[in-house]
Each structure stands twice: as structure tokens, then as C-alpha cells.
């Protein structure tokens, strides 16, 4: 009895001690998370005298609705023959004429062309209700697919290089880790100068090394180079962080294994393939999952460097969530985007976990 009461007491003390952290996490993480789900199904606005109303899934329809239009070549009304213009090319009705104020296709009203391809004489056009958001999803996936392997790989390479006992190795560790410590906003601002089209450092360097043959490129102002520029800078910025994780993994591998393989006469590659890599298995999973999650939430670089432009070439999911929810005051749509992102990230994390599971067989 006595001891039971004592136990209860200590449990209460435990809860009391956990209270500050629990309350803060609850207030700033769990409550906003749940509110996000709630707002996604309402018409909540940032500033509004109107009461919040339940609107069902309409926010998701606005964001995700897709459709395929088939454009047939225009025919002569009398002869039904396919018309050709002066150059002999087929002529097609515009997507606009079908999707604007067209009572025959109410579903397509207000949709815009996302991309299209030729199929025989016809053109198939994929139209989306929210083309900008579609582009944001595609850009985010490109970013993740490029950044995850490259950043992980380069970080491993750096970790292997600085895991040697050489004089002054700490100097290099510091150098590689430095960008991680600097605020991403500051780094983005600096890289904006580096990428600057007229007198940026990158253009100057490339011009110098090619003896002036290189024509300056407006890296962030050109739709073709803007996203790759942000990718390159993002990899550089966070690579040091993952290098440290790899390094901690490397240092858990017992030296005796390397000594044994030396005695067996293993080459460097064999040592990496059969000792280092299996030993890094859990680290690899961690690095992969962390990079993927971080890459999906790409925001600061875009907000500072390009604002989603030029012509939507650097729109991302999180940037759109902030843009809609905050700048355009549409909290409901911003929340719906966050819910979509949550679903995406959790699905991909589960797939990753499944693919990298311990095989017991």
C-alpha cells in the first residue's frame, strides 16, 4: 500500500515535469496540425467578417482536378474536309474556346492547359483547374529526386574523405560544415549575388576560366536554369549536415573489421563494399528519409531567391501553401495544400520504410 502510493506520487511528478514540454508541443505542433486538417474542409479566410463554413472537399477539387481534352482539327463546315492553313498545317480550336464560358462542358470551365501531345491528327491536352499547383508538385518532385541521391552521395564522399587521420583534417570538417550553421536566408541572399545575371560571381568565374568565351547567364531569371540553380545551391548548403551523420555512422564501424580485411588482402573497394557499406545501413536509411522530408518542404530558398518565378519554374508545394494561405489570405486553400503535402510525405516515407525493411528471410 505504502509503496503503491509512492509510485502514484512519482507518476504525478513525472507528468508535472513533462507538462511544460507537452503543453508547448501540443499548443504549437499538435493543435495547428489538427487545425490545418479542419481548415482544409472550410472556407476559412485570414481576414473576414463572414463566419467559417464547411465546404466539403471543394478546396481539394480546386487544387487537384484534372481532365483530358481532345482537340480535333477544324473541318470545313460544308465539306467536312480537314482545313489547312497557308503553310499546310492543321488548325485546331483553342483550349480557351472550350474551357471558358462553354455550357457544353461545365466540368472543364475555367481549367487551363497544363501540357499536351499529338496523337494522330488530334491533340490531347491535359487541363488542370490549378496549373500553378500542378507545376509546384512537379517541381517539388524534381527537387526531391535530384537532391536526395546527390546530396546523400556527396555527403558520403565527403565523410569518407574527412574520416582519415591526416594533419589539419578538422579544418576541412569545419569548412564543409560551415554552410549548415549559417541561416538559410542569409545563404540564399548571398547566392542571389553569386547567380546574378550581369555581374554575378558565377558568371565572372566561368567567363574567366573560358577566357571570355562563356556568355553570362541570368541564372535565376531564366526558366530553364532557375530550378537547377536552386537545386545546386541547396545541395551545397545542407551537404555538411548529412556528412556529419555519415561520419558518425562510419565511426561506429569497428576498426578490427578493417584490420581483418587487411590481413585477408582486401582492396579499398572491397573494404568499402563489404565492410563500410553494410555497416552504414541504418545511417543510410536515416539520411535518405531525412533528406527526402527536408527536400519536400523546400521554401526559404524559393521565397528569397525567385518567389516561384520566372513563369512558375520554381514554384513548390510549401511556397504555394504560404503564398495562398498568407499573402492571398486564403487559409483554407493553404491548409488543403499542407494536408496534401502531409499525405505525400507520409506515403513516400512508408514506401521507403517498406523498401529498406530488415529482411528476416
Amino acid at each position, binding site marked *: 500500500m505504502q509503496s503503491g502510493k509512492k509510485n502514484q506520487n512519482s507518476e504525478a511528478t513525472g507528468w508535472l515535469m513533462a507538462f511544460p514540454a507537452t503543453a508547448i508541443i501540443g499548443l504549437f505542433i499538435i493543435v495547428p496540425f489538427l487545425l490545418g486538417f479542419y481548415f482544409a474542409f472550410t472556407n476559412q479566410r485570414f481576414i473576414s*467578417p463572414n463566419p467559417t463554413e464547411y465546404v466539403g472537399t471543394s478546396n481539394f477539387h480546386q487544387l487537384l482536378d484534372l481532365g483530358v481534352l481532345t482537340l480535333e482539327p477544324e473541318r470545313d463546315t460544308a465539306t467536312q474536309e480537314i482545313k489547312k492553313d497557308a503553310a499546310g498545317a492543321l488548325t485546331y480550336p483553342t483550349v480557351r474556346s472550350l474551357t471558358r464560358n462553354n455550357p457544353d462542358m461545365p466540368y472543364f470551365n475555367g481549367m487551363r492547359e497544363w501540357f499536351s501531345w499529338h496523337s494522330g491528327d488530334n491533340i490531347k491536352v491535359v487541363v488542370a483547374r490549378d496549373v500553378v499547383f500542378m507545376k509546384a508538385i512537379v517541381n517539388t518532385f524534381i527537387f526531391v529526386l535530384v537532391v536526395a541521391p546527390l546530396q546523400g552521395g556527396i555527403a558520403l564522399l565527403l565523410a569518407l574523405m574527412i574520416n582519415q587521420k591526416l594533419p589539419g583534417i578538422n579544418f576541412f570538417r569545419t569548412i564543409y560544415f560551415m554552410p549548415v550553421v549559417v541561416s538559410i536566408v542569409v545563404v540564399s541572399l548571398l547566392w542571389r549575388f553569386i547567380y546574378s545575371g550581369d555581374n554575378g560571381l558565377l558568371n565572372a568565374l566561368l567567363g574567366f576560366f573560358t577566357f571570355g568565351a562563356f556568355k553570362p547567364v541570368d541564372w535565376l531569371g531564366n526558366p530553364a536554369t532557375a530550378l537547377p540553380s536552386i537545386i545546386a545551391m541547396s545541395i551545397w548548403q545542407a551537404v555538411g549536415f548529412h556528412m556529419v551523420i555519415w561520419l558518425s555512422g562510419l565511426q561506429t564501424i569497428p576498426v578490427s573489421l578493417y584490420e581483418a580485411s587487411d590481413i585477408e588482402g582486401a582492396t579499398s573497394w572491397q573494404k568499402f563494399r563489404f565492410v563500410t557499406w553494410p555497416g552504414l545501413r541504418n545511417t543510410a536509411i536515416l539520411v535518405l528519409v531525412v533528406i527526402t522530408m527536408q527536400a519536400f518542404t523546400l521554401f526559404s530558398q524559393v521565397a528569397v531567391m525567385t*518567389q516561384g*518565378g520566372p513563369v512558375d519554374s520554381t514554384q513548390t508545394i510549401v511556397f504555394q501553401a504560404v503564398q495562398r494561405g498568407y499573402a492571398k489570405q486564403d487559409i483554407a486553400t493553404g491548409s488543403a495544400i499542407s494536408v496534401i503535402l502531409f499525405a505525400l510525405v507520409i506515403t513516400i516515407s512508408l514506401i521507403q520504410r517498406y523498401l529498406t525493411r530488415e529482411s528476416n528471410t
Partner: protein
Amino acid sequence: MKKLIFGGMMMASLMASTVAYAATDLTMWYHGAGNDVEKKIVMGLIEDFNKSQADFAVKLEQFPQAAYNDSVTAAAVAGKLPDILDVDGPVMPSWAWAGYMAPLTVDPAAYAKFLPGPIGKYNGKVYSVGLWDAAVALVGRKSVLEANGIRIPTVDKPWTGEEFDAALLKIQASGKFEYPFDLGMAWKGEWYPYAFSPFLQSFGGDIVNRDGYKTADGTLNGAEAVKFGKWWQSLFTRKLVPGTSQSPADRDTGLASGKYALSWNGNWAALGMVDKFKDDVVFMPAPDFGKGPKIGAASWQFGVSAASKHQDGANKFIQFALQDKYLTQFSDGIGLIPPTPESAAASNNYKAGGPMEVFFGLSKAQATLRPVYPGYPVAAKVFEKALSDLANGSEVQATLDAAADEITKDIEKNKNYTK
């Protein structure tokens, strides 16, 4: 412990009783934190008001401009709005609609002689009045224009669209400048709708259909708007203006350093040009693209919060602030346009023969308010994106269609912004 609480209560009651005998405190929020000159003028104005009567005592709280609107929104949600608010002209309808602001009860005679820009009217009621206005002009150099044989336009006879285009091409052909004209694409944000939507209006389009504010279809994507869009895009494709990746430094110094021949810039930057080029500088009116030359109007203004318990006092303060001498002080201190002829005549820069006199005339002749409806902050963002996309080569009709649809959808979503 008990003694301490008791002591505290004594102190509190003591303080409460002293307040009862003194003037009622009014809090005032202002967006200009960080600007010493501005602060000095505002403090002077407040001191004068507090001395002029015994009922109210205004207290100033300053915010940096970038955080100001967010602070007001947060305060409104928390029920902690001040008595006197400072509001950016085009944002006012949004706040009035949301119930943050109360209509002014200031005697209309106090602002009867004002330029139209500084008077914030929404739904037939005046909610805010500004102590100044701002204006935009084509800034250039007489010597450059004369060397290229270009007529210098006046308020009575501005350039036509074709004349303007021809002038830019002539300057480009001279080969002396990196770009003939600078729109200020580096200034993201409100600059785009403020500075560029008047071009669209001069073409005959608009951000939103102002007749009832129910749709943007036909005004932002109609034939006139498409004509504007094509002209706008051609400025970039013909390399007549720097694009969206222009660096802010170039924007600030490009004209002075001879990179650009002409610049589309506000009166706040005019003094620097006068210092640099002396008599050579010329401030010219906006070109007329068909529906008359137009420039944006309305800057920061004062209003009364709906949550204030002392709206009479807040109105009294605003009425007091509208005296000519304060209008002149703000103009002399920070270069803004004084809104009455008297205050302009008394100011250093806008008096007859003053270096920036022309801006007063421009503001009077060309000023056009940005759309006056609560959805404006959203429309402004949509418009900004559309103009950036057009500058970077996106298809004109599709871009304007998308922008018009987004603005219309926002209006529908908010039940036409009627309460």
C-alpha cells in the same frame, strides 16, 4: 507573500485613481519605425495635440513597415487594436470590411481642399485620411531627350503610347545606355500594382471590374487588357527595360549612373535626382495609351479603430493632424506630396518654382485610385504575378485569363465582399 499582494493592490488602486483625474490615453500605431525624421514629426504633432486640450493624451507605438499589417491583423484577432490606426490606402477597404475600422466623424471641411488620393472612402463613407500623397513620374534628363530629338511632354500634352514607344526606340538606337527605360522590376510587392496598373487603365483595362466589383472577367483579360499585355511583354522582348531579375542596387542608382535613360519612379526618389542632375532633370507625366494618362494614388492614411472605446478622441486627433502646417512638415521632412494647395505653397519642394512642384500637378491631374474593395490585397498579388509572368514571356491571353479567374473566384468565395 500576502503583504506583497496587498501592497500591489494598493499601488494599482492608487494608479487607477490618478488616471481618473488625468486625460484619457489613446494609443496610436504607426508604420514608420526606424525613420528618425518621420518619428520626430509625428512626435511633434502628438505633443501639440496633447497640449492643445486636456481630455486625451495620444501615445505612439511604432512598427517597422514590413511587420505592420501583420501586427494589426494579429491585434484584431486578439482584440487589442489601438485607438488610432495607420493604414495603407488600398488596404483600408479590407480592414473596414473585416470590422477593424470605424468611419471617421471628422468634419469634412477639414479635408475639403485635399487632393483626391489621400481620402480613403469605402461604401460611401470616409474611413481614413492621409497627411500626404505620393506620385510617380517618368524621370529623365533634358539633355538626353534633346540629343535624341525627342519632344519633352507636359501635363497638358503628355506623350501618346506611340510617341513613348518611338522615344524608347530612339534612345535604344543611340546605343549609349544599357536599357532606355527602367520600370523598377526589382521592387517586388505593392510597387507592381501601384506603378503599373495605371498603364493598364490607360489602355482601357483594369485589375477588376469596378462596376460592383463582382468580376475581373473582361476587364483584366478583355481586348484592351490583352493589348496592354502585348505592349508590356514587348518592352522586355525588345530589351527596352531590365527584367524581373534586375538587382535592387541597379534600380536605385541606374539612372544616376547612366545605365538607364528614363526611369519610372516616385516622388520619394526625386530629390536625389535633383541633386545629381540639377536643372537637367525632368519629371514627365505618364504616357496616354488611349484612356488618358494615369498614375497611382493613395499612400498611408490615418483612421480610427472600431474597437476603440474613445472614438471621439481619436477623431479629434485626426482632425487636429489635418492642419496645413503638419502637412507641410511631413512634406519637408520626408519629401511627400502635401495634399492641399496651401500646404504645398508653404513647402520647400512643392511651392511654385520648387524642384518637385510638378508632382503636385501630376497627382491632381492623373491620380487614379487602385480598386477600392476588400479583396484588393489578393488582387494585388495576382496582378503582380501576372505581370512578372508576362515579363518572362508567358502567353498573354492565357496569363490574363488565369489572373482574371483567380480574382473573380476570390470575390465569389467571399460572397462578393458584402457583409
